[in-house]
């Protein structure tokens, strides 16, 4: 009788697959790694061999330099790759550009490691595809019923309304450098904002990478090119930490906006001095998590990181055995 833990089991380095001898998103350097997406807590440098999507390898190369691992192998979405006795397929996760779920098959057993994911539309990446499986291994970053992300177009409309209402001020949108920033810019374009968007230096290389992969971000300029007063009425996109940094003083009376799922909770916005919280997240909210589990109906649910206990309870109440892996080393989105 084959047990799921014979195929995948948690270890200090990350989720380990013994029959294929590889780790998924290991937090320490290992000999063989499968990487679900390019966020730095999932994609670290210094592994021996790395298997990931072409886009994820590109992102890692951009962040760590081309020698970030000894060997890299790109897999297209849906392409089956053999690792010893195990078959690995990368399937879109809808989280950021290149993000994938790792589908792992061995002796008739299918396990899906979701990585980070979301279910709603994102103009910068391929949508999540549910895969029937025996064990679904989910994240739970927003695994509490308080997290219900609104329609992102509505949040962008709130930003644009504020820009119109305060023409003498600048608006700085704090957004995570990989994924969120490009999604916010793309959403602004879709909402009809065709003016130049000014960006912090820390975003420039990833913006260029997204554009290379066909995501049209429209006219961008470094946020250093103008005199202070000329930034009135402008939208600036920067990493979240820049909002409170001295860097923000170069703009006239900036309205601090922050695009994050955490902005759903007012105390979080207040603590950071955010004047305009924008609830835009690249993670599944409570409803997305529960509908995904309901849709896949796995034989068992494992939860990697986040608020595991609430999601586990929900699954148990709905007749799906659940188990919290309590993996360490994965940061909460934008939670610096």
């Amino acid at each position, binding site marked *: 009788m084959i047990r799921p833990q014979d195929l995948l089991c948690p270890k200090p380095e990350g989720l380990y697959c013994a029959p294929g001898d590889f780790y998924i998103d290991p937090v320490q350097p290992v000999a063989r790694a499968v990487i679900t997406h390019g966020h730095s807590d999932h994609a670290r440098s210094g592994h021996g061999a790395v298997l990931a999507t072409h886009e994820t390898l590109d992102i890692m190369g951009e962040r760590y330099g081309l020698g970030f691992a000894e060997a890299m192998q790109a897999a297209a979405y849906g392409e089956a790759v053999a690792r010893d006795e195990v078959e690995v397929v990368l399937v879109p996760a809808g989280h950021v550009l290149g993000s994938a779920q790792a589908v792992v098959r061995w002796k008739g057993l299918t396990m899906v490691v979701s990585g980070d994911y979301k279910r709603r539309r994102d103009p910068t990446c391929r949508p999540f595809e549910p895969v029937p499986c025996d064990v679904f291994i989910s994240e739970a970053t927003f695994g509490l019923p308080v997290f219900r992300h609104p329609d992102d177009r509505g949040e962008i409309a709130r930003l644009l309304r504020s820009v119109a209402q305060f023409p003498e001020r600048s608006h700085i949108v704090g957004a995570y450098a990989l994924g969120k920033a490009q999604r916010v810019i793309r959403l602004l374009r879709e909402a009809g904002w065709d003016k130049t968007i000014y960006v912090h230096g820390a975003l420039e290389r990833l913006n260029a990478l997204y554009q290379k992969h066909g995501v049209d971000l429209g006219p961008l300029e470094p946020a250093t090119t103008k005199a202070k007063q000329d930034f009135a009425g402008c939208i600036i996109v920067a990493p979240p930490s820049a909002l409170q940094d001295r860097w923000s003083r170069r703009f006239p009376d900036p309205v601090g906006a922050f695009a994050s799922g955490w902005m759903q909770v007012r*105390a979080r916005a207040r603590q950071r001095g955010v004047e305009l919280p924008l609830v835009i997240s690249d993670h599944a909210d409570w409803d997305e998590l529960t509908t995904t589990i309901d849709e896949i109906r796995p034989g068992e649910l494992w939860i990697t990181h986040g608020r595991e206990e*609430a999601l586990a309870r929900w699954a148990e109440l709905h007749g799906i055995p659940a188990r919290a892996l309590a993996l360490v080393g994965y940061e909460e989105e934008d939670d610096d």
Partner: protein
Amino acid sequence: MRAFAELLDRLSLTGSRNAKLTLVRDYLRDTPDPDRGWALAALTGDLTFSAAKPNFIRKAVEERMDPQLFWWSYDYVGDLAETVALVWPRRPGANREPELSEVVEGLRTATRAEVQRLIEGWLDAMVEPRERWALLKLMTRELRVGLTARLAKRAAAELGGVEPAEIEELWHALHPPYEDLFAWLEGRSEKPSSENPGRFRPVMLAQAIDEEVDFGKLDPADYAAEWKWDGIRVQLVNEGGERRLYTRTGDDISRTFPDVLDALFEEGVLDGELLVVRDGQVASFADLQQRLNRKVVDAKLLAQYPAGVRAYDLLAEGREDTRTLSFRERRARLEAFVSRQASPRISLSPLQPFETWPELAAMRAEPPAGDPQIAEGLMLKRWESMYEAGRPKGPWFKWKRDPYLVDAVLMYAQRGHGKRSSFYSDYTFGTWTQDEAGKRYLTPVGKAYFGFTDEELKQIDKFVRDNTVERFGPVRSVRAEPHFGLVFEVAFEGLQRSGRHKSGVAMRFPRINRIRWDKPPGEADELATLERLLERMEAR
């Protein structure tokens, strides 16, 4: 209701007064009647339904979801209303979302038994958590979004391009949802009548005098001088059978001061200072604080802290509006009026005769014996001036006593809000004291967040960042040692005993007067210096 929810949301996260004004003004401009009127009433605290207690809502939500999941959610968010707003499950096929006016009408007319069912129905119908949060705030009648009633009215004034004082004066004659007010503000009708016995009249305020510039231009013969009292500015009204006591912003505090109301037997409107007065002598501001913000006033409190008004102007006599008369004429009438009341609770604020500015300056520096010793300074009023609402330049000046100064050491710095959110701009400072073993240490004596220029703020901010010892959330503790640290010369208006502060003293209006980059912290003042000053003030 969505627009109102968005307004509350933004107000609660916005520190800047100007931004708040813009948000409210735009909302009032873009929202139709009667919603905007109900919103204005909610913001000014003029809604009158009986507030719903939020407790029932917890039971209601637990009927709709797993109580354990709710508990974890509440535990995470920390605020009941916000948690409920976030977790309340949508009910597809519920009624359409309610308008603000429907909600207010519902809350006004529903019986206690009906209210809960109504609120649950609205929560079911609302799509966004923000709206549910706004509803739950509204039903308690306490919005707590950091907006004063005065600022809300000012936003309405901006909408119509009228003076805020015009709205203040009208206010007590108006009723929500204020359709007549908006019709006037938008130029669609005449100004509503302010004839409303017992109403508040917007007050006249003084400019701070600029000693270097103004005295050269002003003729002492044109001005009357009187002492500036350290109480709160009030308006005492007896008109058409209505007796009221208002603060200078028009808040009705009649209920807290029945003793003062009773004293004014003749019809008229007095402008003056509310003080605690014992045997004709003015008590300290701390005594007055015992009387302020009390919900219940018992006989003991009234006897212990007898309040009175020291009158300095007369805005109406009988039913006659005296505000267009000159200060000289008003003063003559005031003196007669006060003497007719013959009450120890209504006294006249005496004029201080003088011939020249230097003579008056000497009195300000060394006030004569008696109450002037604890006055905040002097007021100058032009004999020929009308009573004009707002802060006109020229007719009235305040000339405050020089502040007290102390050298204190920066101990903690906290990040500011709004414009200042990237700066450490709120400073806690301390003076030296000794422990039992005779070792000197700093104890906090106050907190200040203004008094410095933008350039100085940058320098202090840099000092804080470079010399942080520890961080606690938005607060940093800063190096403060005898030979290294930053000394502020702190100016303040007075001292009080305080049980809340470890040092036992509390400053009134502390601010940074000067930054003493040159001074070693070891040479800053001792707590004992403040204690001696406090004793001197109390011994008067």
